[in-house]
């Protein structure tokens, strides 16, 4: 079972690679942020897996929770950033364009 | 021969007398009469204290007092012996006279900041006496530095551009040499010997250092005490001529330059020991340096038109006499050089007083403008004449004796080259002094050179300069105290 968890972990790491690719290449900042958010989620899972490997999940759960929480705060902050730096909202513009096309 | 030693606080008091006088001087700044009264009281007190020790010293006893151990193994200590006594006597007596003179001078010219002037004057005197009575190299250095700094405000008293330049030259030279040369030498000595650097009659350095080190140390000390005006580091002296005349008098006759020379004498005798120097044959180098300075400075003096500058260069030469005398490393030479401290002091201060009096009365500084002045200011110019006699070394003035002993010393040692140097320089002295006197008395002034009324200077100034002139003459007839002091000191340096 331990091997299974290890392999799971390695697999998750492997899945981070494409996301990392998005982070490196990501044409815009917000793409990167999305990718970061995803990595955060994966990290949380990994934490639990590490806890499993240590056989001390009870200790690791706490900060997996913290992690999820703060990851959320991080992406929220980034979102707010865009909210603030673009004061004129573009939703309406987008919609009109949609209708035109 | 080890002189007996007594412990007494009198040297400290003598040193402090003028330092403490600063307080009343500053406090009484709004009442000029009381302020100067305080100066006088302190002056007489100091002189009295110094004089009170004279008999003891003449007995061959030294007085010492250890004030404070400031660095492990190093003390601030006072010790009075013949050489120190001689110097202290000259300095303290001349302070009184100078004070008298400066009252006349300052009031005559209505100078500003007189309180500051008197205060720093007093501080300088303290430092001078401190140097004279210093028991060890360290204390000597302390007071030496104190003197440099205390005289700076005096030199730059006028606070104008010229004063600024002069003061800058003054400090640059003195501090560079003292910090750059003396301090390392001092510490080197301390490190090498590990002793408290007390001056001993016959030096204490012997056995601690080798020949090369000794030579380097000797040069460091000799040039380091740049107050003595040895040639490469002499230029502060003419530069400092911007000071008010009483200060120049003090600088060039009593306190500063003599302190420099005194320090050198002290180091030669008390640190190296004349015998040690003789052993290593280091005296010759110094004599040649001194001889060079003597001749060159005399030649320069000839070409100066500004009276005070001429006097300054004369001083440079005369100081080197003293060094030369000591560097001869003979008892007679040493005696002569010590006596020359005193004799030159009285002579030169007279000359400066005269220069100041002329300036105060007429506003003239240049020699070429002084034609015929002797008729207007007879007392001054007679005093000037006496002073020049003393400097040149012609009988009827005290300078004769010191020069006599110096010459005797050279003959005794067989250094005929030095004899020639001394004689040549005497001739040169005569050549640059007597024309002034001659012109003053016997030439007709061009018209309109002086304003209508030219009279003698402020009575206090005149009194002072006549006093010193008189004393100079008196010393010719009665050089006894100085001679015996010098001889007592010299006998400690060199065992015959």
């Amino acid at each position, binding site marked *: 079972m331990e091997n299974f968890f290890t392999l799971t972990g390695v697999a998750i790491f492997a899945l981070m690679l494409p996301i990392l690719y998005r982070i490196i290449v990501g044409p815009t900042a917000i793409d990167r942020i999305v990718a970061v958010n995803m990595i955060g989620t994966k990290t949380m899972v990994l934490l639990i897996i590490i806890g499993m490997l240590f056989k001390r999940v009870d200790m690791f759960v706490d900060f997996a929770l913290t992690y999820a929480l*703060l990851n959320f*705060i991080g992406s*929220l902050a980034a979102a707010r*950033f865009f909210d603030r730096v673009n004061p004129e909202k573009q939703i309406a513009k987008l919609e009109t364009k949609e209708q035109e096309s | 021969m080890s002189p007996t030693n007594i412990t007494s606080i009198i040297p400290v008091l003598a040193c402090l007398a003028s330092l403490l006088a600063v307080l009343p001087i500053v406090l009484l700044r709004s009442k000029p009469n009381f302020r100067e009264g305080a100066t006088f009281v302190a002056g007489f007190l100091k002189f009295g204290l110094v004089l009170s020790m004279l008999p003891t010293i003449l007995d061959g006893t030294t007085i010492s007092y250890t004030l404070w151990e400031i660095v492990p193994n190093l003390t601030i200590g006072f010790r009075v012996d013949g050489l120190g006594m001689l110097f202290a006597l000259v300095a303290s007596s001349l302070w009184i006279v100078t004070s008298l003179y400066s009252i006349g001078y300052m009031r005559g010219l209505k100078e500003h900041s007189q309180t500051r002037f008197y205060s720093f004057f007093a501080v300088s005197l303290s430092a001078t006496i401190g140097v004279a009575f210093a028991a060890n190299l360290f204390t000597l250095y302390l007071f030496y530095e104190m003197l440099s700094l205390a005289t700076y405000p005096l030199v730059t008293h006028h606070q104008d551009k010229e004063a600024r330049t002069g003061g800058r030259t003054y400090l640059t030279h003195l501090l560079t040499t003292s910090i750059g040369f003396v301090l390392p030498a001092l510490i080197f000595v301390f490190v090498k010997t590990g002793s408290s650097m007390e001056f001993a009659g016959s030096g204490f350095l012997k056995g601690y250092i080798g020949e090369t080190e000794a030579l380097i140390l000797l040069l460091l000390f000799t040039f380091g005490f740049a107050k003595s005006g040895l040639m490469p580091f002499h230029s502060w002296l003419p530069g400092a001529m911007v000071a008010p005349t009483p200060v120049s008098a003090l600088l060039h006759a009593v306190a500063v330059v003599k302190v420099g020379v005194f320090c050198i004498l002290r180091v030669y005798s008390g640190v190296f020991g004349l015998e040690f120097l003789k052993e290593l044959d280091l005296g010759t180098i110094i004599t040649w340096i001194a001889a060079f300075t003597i001749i060159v400075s005399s030649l320069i003096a000839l070409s100066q038109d500004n009276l005070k500058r001429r006097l300054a260069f004369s001083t440079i030469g005369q100081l080197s006499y003293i060094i030369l005398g000591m560097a001869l490393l003979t008892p007679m030479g040493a005696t002569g050089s010590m006596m020359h401290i005193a004799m030159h002091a009285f002579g030169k201060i007279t000359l400066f007083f005269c220069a100041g009096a002329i300036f105060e009365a007429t506003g003239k500084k240049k020699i070429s403008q002084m034609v015929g002045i002797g008729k207007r200011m007879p007392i001054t110019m007679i005093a000037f004449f006496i002073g020049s006699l003393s400097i040149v070394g012609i009988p009827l003035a005290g300078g004769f004796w010191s020069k006599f002993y110096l010459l005797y010393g050279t003959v005794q040692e067989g250094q005929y080259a030095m004899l020639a140097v001394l004689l040549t320089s005497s001739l040169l002295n005569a050549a640059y002094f007597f024309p002034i006197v001659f012109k003053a008395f016997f030439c007709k002034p061009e018209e309109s050179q002086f304003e209508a009324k030219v009279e003698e200077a402020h009575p206090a100034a005149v009194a002072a300069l006549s006093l010193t002139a008189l004393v100079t003459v008196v010393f010719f007839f009665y050089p006894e105290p100085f001679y015996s002091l010098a001889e007592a000191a010299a006998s400690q340096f060199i065992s015959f």
Partner: protein
Amino acid sequence: MSAVSDFPDWGDPHSPANSYRLSQGYITDTFPQTSVPNMVTAVLADYRGYDTMFETVVIFTAGIAIIGILRRYGPKDKVIPEQKLYKKEPDLIVETTCRLMIPIIQLFALYVVAHGHHSPGGGFQGGVIFGASFILLALARDLQAAQKWVPESRILKLAGTGIFIYAGFGFLCLLLGSNFLDYAILHKVMGVTPIEARSHSMLGVEIGVAFTVTAIMFSIYSNLASNGYMKEGL
């Protein structure tokens, strides 16, 4: 530098030179001496409690420093007039989520503080999480809302109180005649064994740390986000 640093015998294996009596001692003795199973907490708050006190001070310093550097007071600095303040258009989804989250986050933060003895966590982490809950509010609504909850004066009070709690424990020990921060002496006051006194004092100390960290984290955020005006945030 990088070349040389390879030389020494590194080693993850369990017996390098670093299994000196110090770390060994910490591992074996903490529980008997302090009855705290989390060695990190025990070492942090007791053996090296002095370090931790100043760690808290570092945080406090940072908070004060940032106020000192950035904060702008006074009418002349009020470049942005009140009505021109940025008004965030309400976002229902984010707001509701945050509203539901905040109390639970705070409870969780307290849990982290309280269970520092038994599981990872402690005053600092709990404090950060608690502070994060305020930051979350400021992000979800705006800074004003969070400011209403913890205005600047209260931030300072909280932070100061935190350190006072910590130092107060130390000082109390000193007054009772023991060394600074020697909690064992507090059993006289608490009425428990010295070992438990240590354990309980550690909790007290952690609470102090949490106070400070909470306040300062939020303070730093609000200063940074509002560029010193404390008016409108990110």
